[in-house]
Structures are given as C-alpha cells and as structure tokens.
C-alpha cells in the first residue's frame, strides 16, 4: 500500500474517533453542568475542556468569556477552530476523499454524507434543540462509520491502519476524559465523592455505565472507575483494550523499520497488562496519565515515521 494512502486512512479514522470523543466529553460536561452548582465550578469544567485541548489562545482570541455556550459554540461548529467537531468531520471526509478508491464505496458514502449533514447544521439550531441530540447524532455517525468499515472492508493493511488510527486516538481520549473529570470529581484526592449522578455521567461518556454494573455488581467508587477505564482488558474504550489492538495491528503491518515502535507499544501494553490500580493512584493518577499520553504520542510518531511518511533514504 502507498505510504500516503496509509497516512490518509490513519488520519481519517483518527478524526472520526476524535469527533466522537469530543462529542462524548462535551456531552458529559453538559450533563454534569445541569446539576445545581456554583457558576464558578461550572465554568471551571468548561474551561478544562479548552485547556485539555491546548486551545486557550485560540479561544481567547475569539471569545471574551468562558461560558457553556461559548465553549460549545467553539468546540461544536466553529470552522476556524481546527479541533471542533465540525472541523474533525471535515478532515475525516477530506482524508477519505483522498483515498476513496481504497475504501469501499459504502464507507465513502457514509463519511461523505456525515460531512454534508454536519456542514448544513447551524449552532443556534443545535443549541436551541438541546446539544444532547447533536452529540447523539455524532456518536451515531461514528458507530455507523465503524460498522460500515467492519462490514464491508477487506481486512487487509488498509483495515489495520484504520484500526491503528482509531485505537490510538481513543486511548488518548479516554485518558484525557479521565484526567480532567477525575480531578473535578475528586479535587482533594482523598475525600470520597459519592455523587452517583456525576460518576455515572463520566462512565456513560465512555459507554461504560452498564459495563461497570456487569463487572463489579457493586456501588460506584472512584478507584473502580479508574480501574475499569484504564485496566479492563475487554472494555472497548479502556486503555488496556486500545493498546491490545494497537500491538496486534502493528504486528500485522510490520516492516523492516517498525521494530522499535512495536517495542514501545509492547512495553506500554505490558505496563497496562500487569498494573494494579492502587499503584497507579498512589503514584498520582494525573502523573500516570500524563506519562501514558506521552507514550501514545511517541507511538503515533513512530508509526508516522515507519509507515506513513518515510524519508526517501530509509527505503
């Protein structure tokens, strides 16, 4: 497969996953903001979204105040914000367009019509009808694009690069959601918050609420939430699950240059496989997650170097 083709497939998948994760993050923030709380606390959680995406400067240049509406407007539809949901869907579609001969026509039609529908949305309408409906739509389109990929695409190299894009992006996003919400919910790190509603919203944001019940059959505690999202092998949005897939798909596409990247992914996978949640929390969840996101970045960089944009002399 052409390196450029693999690059487009990888990013096509990343952007779709990013749009979905963003919808999930905004959705949970919105839901959490509906419970009675101080304005300061509410704005704090909206601000966290901007900080999380390193968009303080871009946001500040366009909006005066951090309010729910401003952050939503900026992150949902703002075409000038390259990290907005609508920008992600556009980039997804553009990458797909560049390889529309490699993906199946059903995949292309799904991604193209997603973009066409997104393009025709206006924020005021979305906001008026309750943002939740829009976030549901984004998730649905993401489910659809994953489904059409699994259901129609030959499971060859193209499929593996798409999976790599999806899983790397998802690992990064689950880590981010956990990082930002865990600390909002448990500011001092020792004082137990038993706000069932809030923890439930966090779990729901990664489709893990019902799974939590199945796995623990017990009340929700912060430790278990962290354990589930980080270490559970079979939860589709957990870090462990993602790294499983990253290693597996990397092995499927391995070439002469990719040994080091595979080694790094293997190490990270092993760390998740053999970790205990108590140790992670003792080390400090924030530090641990920061390290993790760093490693994910390194692996993405390695994939890019080994497969997607190789320099000429490496051939």
């Amino acid at each position, binding site marked *: *497969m*052409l*390196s*450029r*083709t*693999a690059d487009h497939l990888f990013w096509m998948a990343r952007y779709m996953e990013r749009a979905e994760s963003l919808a999930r993050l905004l959705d949970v923030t919105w839901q959490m903001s509906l419970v009675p709380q101080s304005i300061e606390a509410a704005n704090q959680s909206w601000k966290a979204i901007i900080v999380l995406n390193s968009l303080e400067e871009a946001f500040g240049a366009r909006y005066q105040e951090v309010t729910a509406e401003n952050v939503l407007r900026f992150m949902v539809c703002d075409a000038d914000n390259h990290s907005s949901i609508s920008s992600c869907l556009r980039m997804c579609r*553009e990458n797909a*367009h*560049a390889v*529309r*001969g*490699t993906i199946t*026509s059903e995949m*292309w*039609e799904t991604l*193209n*019509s997603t973009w*066409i529908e997104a393009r025709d949305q206006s924020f005021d309408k979305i906001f008026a009808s309750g943002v939740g409906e829009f976030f549901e739509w984004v998730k649905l389109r993401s489910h659809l694009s994953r489904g059409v990929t699994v259901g129609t695409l030959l499971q060859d*190299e193209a499929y593996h*690069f798409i999976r790599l894009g999806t899983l790397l992006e998802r690992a990064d996003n689950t880590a981010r959601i956990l990082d930002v919400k865990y600390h909002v919910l448990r500011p001092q790190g020792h004082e137990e918050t038993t706000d069932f509603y809030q923890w439930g919203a966090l779990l729901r944001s990664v489709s893990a609420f019902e799974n939590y019940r199945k796995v623990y059959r017990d009340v929700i505690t912060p430790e278990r939430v962290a354990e589930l999202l980080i270490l559970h092998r079979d939860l589709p949005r957990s870090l462990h699950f993602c790294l499983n897939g990253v290693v597996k798909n990397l092995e499927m*596409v391995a*070439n*002469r240059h990719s040994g080091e990247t595979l080694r790094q992914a293997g190490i990270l996978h092993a760390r998740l496989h053999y970790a205990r949640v108590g140790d992670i929390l003792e080390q400090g969840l924030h530090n641990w997650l920061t390290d993790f996101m760093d490693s994910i970045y390194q692996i993405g960089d390695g994939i890019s170097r080994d*497969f*997607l944009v*190789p320099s*000429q002399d490496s*051939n």
Partner: protein
Amino acid sequence: MDFYNEMTDARGAIRNHYVQYSRWLEVTPMERIARKRAEADLAFHRVGITFAVYGEEAGKERLIPFDIIPRIIPAEEWRSLEAGLRQRVKALNCFLNDIYHDREILRAGKIPEEQVLGNAQFRPVMQGVDVPEGIYAHIAGVDVVRAGAGEFYVLEDNLRVPSGVSYMLEDRKMMMRLFPELFAKYKVAPVQHYPDMLLEKLRAVAPKGVSNPTVVVLTPGAYNSAYFEHTFLAQQMGVELVEGRDLFVSKDQVYMRTTQGTHRVDVIYRRIDDDFLDPLAFRPDSALGVPGLLQAYRAGNVTLANAIGTGVADDKSIYPYVPEMIRFYLGEEPTLNNVPTYMCRKKTDLDYVLAHLPELVVKEVHGAGGYGMLVGPASTKKEIERFRKLLEARPDGYIAQPTLALSNCPTFVEEGIAPRHLDLRPFVLSGRDVEMVPGGLTRVALTKGSLVVNSSQGGGTKDTWVLEG
C-alpha cells in the same frame, strides 16, 4: 436551421429504435419519473460523483446534471461509427510515431512541416524515442456530433488526457438502478467491462521484459476537476492511485513509496498534462510531477499512457489533415467526416472568416473545455466584435468552422420535455490492438438553443445505448 432529432424523424414520427421507449414514457406516471429523477440526484450527491469547477470557490464541487432519457444508437449506425473511429485513431497513432521518427508524411508534403515542427504541442524530447507497440494515444476520447441529415462528424480528437468515461459508466449504472424494466425491453450492449479492457491495454504496453507489470494511475490530486474519475478508474482496475509525491526515480527506474518499502512501477496511466509531468524537464514549478520521470521514460523503463507529445496530433491546426493521414498511412478512404475548417493563419481563410463571423464557430487552436470560443449565430454583436479584434491581432491562434446543426434529443428541463443539442464522446483504446466498448459519453447542452455541451458550461449527460443486433 433544421436539426436532426434523435427520437423523431422529419415528419414527426418516432424512429423505430425509440418506439418502445416512447411508449414506456407515455404510460409511466410523471410522479414516478419525478421521484426517480430526485433519487438519481441524491445518489450522485451521496456517492460524490461531482466535478470541481475552475474559477469558482476553491474546492467547490458540482453535480453534472444527469438526464434520464437515453440516447439510443441502432446497431447498424454504431458499426459504421466504430469502424470510422478505429480507423481514425489508428492513423493518428501512425502519425505520432512517424513525426517523432522519420517524418515521412512531412517529406511527402502532405502536411506543411512548420505546422508540425513549429507547433507548441510538438515535443522535441520525444524525437527518436521508441514506445511499446508504437502506440502514443492509448486512450482517445473522440468527440463526434450528428449534423445535417444525421451523418456523423468528428469535432475533436482528444488524445492527451480525455476524461468522462466514469460518467459513461455511472450513467449506465444509474439507469439500470432507476429503470430496470427498460433493460428488459431493449437489448443494450454492455459497457461495464471498460476498466478491464483498459487494464489489459495498459499491461500490454509495459516495458520490454516485464512479465507482470505494475500499473498505476497518476492524478494531480483531490482538487483536480476529474479527481472522481481518477479514483474510480484506479479502483475499478484494482491498481494504485498515486500522486507525484508518491513516486520517485532512482537510476532511471520509477518507484512508489509503500508501507512495505519501495515498489517498482512499470506503466503509468497519467492524468496530468505533459507540462507538469517532470519538473526537471518541463515546468520547473510543477509540484505535481516526478523529478527524473522523463529520463526514465526515455530509457524505456516505464510506459506513460498517453505518451508525451500526443497534443500535436489533436491540435485544432492539425485536425484538417487527419483525412490525409488516413489515406497516407492506411491507404484507406476516411469513413467519418471532418468538419470543414478555416485556418485563420491563411490570409484567404482569415478574410472569409472575418466576413462571415455571425455564421461561424471560432475556436482557439489550443483551447479546450468550451472556454474561449465564439458561436457566431448565438452571439451578440459585441462578442463578435471582440472576437474580430482577437482574430486580427493573432490569426494563427484560431480556426473557424461552419456552425453545425447539432442533432438534438428530448431532454427533461424545467418546462417539461424539450429537445436539446448533444454530442458523443466514445473512447477508443489502443494497445496491441484497437478496441472500444459500444457507447460513449453523451453530453447534452441544457440551455435552450445552446450548442456548447461542456460540463464546465452547464452541460449535462445522458446514458448512451448502443443496441445489440
């Protein structure tokens, strides 16, 4: 002016090959047709069968309107049209091979030497280069029209990077999806094997000694107006769609960069103009091409389809000599008509053209896509005067032809069904032999009275049915 109508004869009776269709149209409720037309629009949009329009907002894509009334060609008519097209393309390939080698046709005095050698499309770098099977124009999209009492005329031989074949295939797919019952009434010759035929032709012209050639389609990229077609053909042939940056040349061999290292490329179906192919040889500012490609090509290590330098044969100033080429190389009489052409570089022709501008069609010698032309009868005094000045300033840049009474065919337009003018672009493939699929792209001018069918000028398309028999 009287026009030949594809569906009805001069007395208004339905022609034999349209009788069934016309009966079907009568009994089919208009709501159903309207619904099907809307369905077609939606499907074309969702599939993204669009083209980019130059000069409009960057990246903007438009649909080419699709008309559901097919253009039907009886078997007998197609047979003679096909024979004429094959003859023509054969002669054009002979001509290209000749002028880049021994130039016998020039020495025989059949074509003025300066017309060929002084032509901007003549590529001196191709002098003496041998290409596999002596084929230069592997893919030709010859524009033909019907005029007068129904005889076919060749309007243009497109031998560089003719496009439109994907619409031919998609239009057929769409018709079969919308109105399958029509295909039970008519035995329509299939066209869907075009990509296989193309791949077979491309593989046949691989460099010597390559037994299992790697074929690729080279595109300028996603913003090119014909990008949809590039992806479509690559996908249908099952070959890689590459951009210039995916390829590199090392020791006169062309390679592509893949996730598994480098891979040799043998045949390039390029959809990039000559000028942009190789920044080292042609336009140095081209970011679309592959540095060193020309060198690899001249060394015989890669085949380009079409070859470099085919533009000299489809140039409008060479066009009048095609019948002469057929006689010279094949020893046959041309079976397809050429349109009488006035060469404005000749004083007598120029005088005639200037005196008859309101009746003539004036075209730029190097123009394409319906840009920069004057259709005398449909133009205002002001436009005619503007062209008069252009002609006087640079007569050798233009040719003129009588305005052909292009045939028309009933077409869905806003006010209902009305006749609109059309042309036909069949695709002629040359490799070890010359082959065609029965049909082509029918383009239709949707504006009332307009004779310009180009999609960039608001033209639409119709499915083209060649009947079996």
